């Protein structure tokens, strides 16, 4: 699926986002990085039509999202929010059922997917009683289960232990290899380096850099974003980014 974002702008109180333009093809992972409060979540939510931009347009396979029904949009874009809370005690199974709301062939896949991720013992648990990492995993499974053309993930790596982190990163690569698109917000520069085809860097709502992973993950760009200093090296084909406290001069 082809995602085109052109000239998106948005402002709330004193925060101004954009203009942001980007494009993502099927089988591509776009990473979004930047300091806290730089507008990453806001950008994702605008792309999901959860907020209206003041300017600009977003098209999916050439169709403007403003012209799509909620159902059609949910068939194109799945959302992994920063957090999910169930105030009225839905079980893990209920949460996963919610994720396939727009699917025609329901339930059939759910037990398969629960087995595939080895979360059978979580199935009947109260979603809120899960640990942070278990919640993230269930939410990711829900987003995959939604079976949309692209998945937009807001910091999917928070609270994950080492095993789950590897599992989630592997999952993102699998989604990519299946021809679907992923847009993922990540803080960890090395994770961005290892899974992204392209990266967009935001700071205070402004695009600092947008391009291929090799072009964006360079010390000159990173030092514009953060007040640390950086070294970037290539070890056996993959990038490795190190941050150090900047020397006072």
């Amino acid at each position, binding site marked *: 699926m082809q995602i085109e974002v052109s000239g998106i702008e948005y402002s709330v109180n004193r925060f101004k986002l954009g203009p942001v333009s980007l494009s993502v093809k099927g089988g591509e992972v776009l990473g979004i990085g930047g300091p806290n409060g730089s507008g990453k979540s806001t950008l994702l939510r605008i792309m999901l039509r*959860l907020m209206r931009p003041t300017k600009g347009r977003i098209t999916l396979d050439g169709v403007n999202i403003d012209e799509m029904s*909620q159902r059609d*949009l949910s068939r194109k874009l799945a959302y992994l929010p920063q957090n*999910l809370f169930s*105030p009225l005690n839905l*079980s893990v199974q209920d949460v996963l059922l919610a994720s*396939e*709301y727009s699917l025609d062939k329901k339930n059939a896949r759910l037990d398969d997917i629960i087995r595939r991720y080895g979360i059978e013992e979580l199935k009947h648990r*109260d979603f809120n009683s899960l640990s942070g990492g278990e919640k993230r995993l269930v939410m990711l499974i829900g987003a995959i289960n*939604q079976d949309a053309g692209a998945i937009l993930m807001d910091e999917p790596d928070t609270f994950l232990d080492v095993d789950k982190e590897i599992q989630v990163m592997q999952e993102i690569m699998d989604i990519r290899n299946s021809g679907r698109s992923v847009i993922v917000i990540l803080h960890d520069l090395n994770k961005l380096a290892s899974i992204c085809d392209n990266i967009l860097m935001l700071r205070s709502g402004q695009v600092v850099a947008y391009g291929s992973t090799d072009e964006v993950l360079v010390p000159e760009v990173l030092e514009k974003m953060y007040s640390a200093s950086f070294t970037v090296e290539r070890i056996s084909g993959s990038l490795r980014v190190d941050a150090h406290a900047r020397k006072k001069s």
Partner: protein
Amino acid sequence: MFKTLRRFSGIQEHNKSGTIFIISILALLVAAVSSAFIGVVYISPIEVSRIFLSQIPLVGHYFSAGIDIEHQPEIIVYLREPHILGAVIIGAVLGVGGAVIQSIFKNPITEPYMIGISSGAALGAVLSIAVGLTILGVYTLQVLAFIFSALIVGLIYFFSLRSGRVPIVYMLLTGIAVSVFVSSIVAFMLYNSPNLASTSEVFFWLMGSVDTITWAELIPVALLSIASMFILSLYTKELDTIQLGEDYARSVGVKVESLKIIALTLVTVSVSAVVSISGLIGFVGLVVPHISRLLHGGSNRKVIPSSAILGALFLVLAYDVSRLVIAPKVVPIGIITGMIGVPFFIYLLRKLAGGYYAD
């Protein structure tokens, strides 16, 4: 008792849930039927059974032969039956309304009255008597209570509109504020006309009571209520999804604003309808959905039907208590639900604070 409830809810197996449903339906049937045997006037159980059976179409006349005592059939058919069925319908509507409102507001401490239904209905009821309106015949109070209830909810909804959407926290706060305002007007009217407060009709209405319900008012209310509850039960998936947040619900394809309009309209129509004939019966809408969640887990697929059954059961039992506690006097049922409901709710809250609902 709660230990048992929680053990059940912790396991959440399908067959366990099914067993609980069967038990609660049976309990409701037993409670409703046996309630007809209780009353101010003593009628022997055999007579009551005969009167019941005589109402069955086609074969009923075989049983009517033995009933000879004056007025007994009338007491059962025209008083006890509509009162008990009224309690069933009202309890079910308040239970379902509570489950739906709690889902939409994503808040376990809300109930249908909070969106302006109770204050609006009270305004209509008090107004009808204060102004002495009779344009709508003997049911002027009921009709005005219904209309004003719907009107105040509509007003609160439009006050809460923000560029085509109704932010739900905003609506909750607006609802509370407008309700206080409307209740002040009601209090002023009661204060200002001393004979109004003592009018037993208003008194009983404000206390909540099923003792004045007649077939003529019950039938339209029951039809509206059953239709509303049926349509609401078609939206259990959407109502589960919206519990996880409106943004998340949108992202999986739910038309959130239409869902809110449909669900709020159906809750308003059904709850206003039952309130118009019974007055303000509190705490059913708040407590019953929680008991349902403890028994069946959080999904509305089970919480909504369970709240209907348990709401009805709770109100039928409360009605029995209201007729027995200082017999031969009948206490307004709203007093009983408050007396049972409030301590129970405080107990529940302490349980919730103990981890079940903690985030």
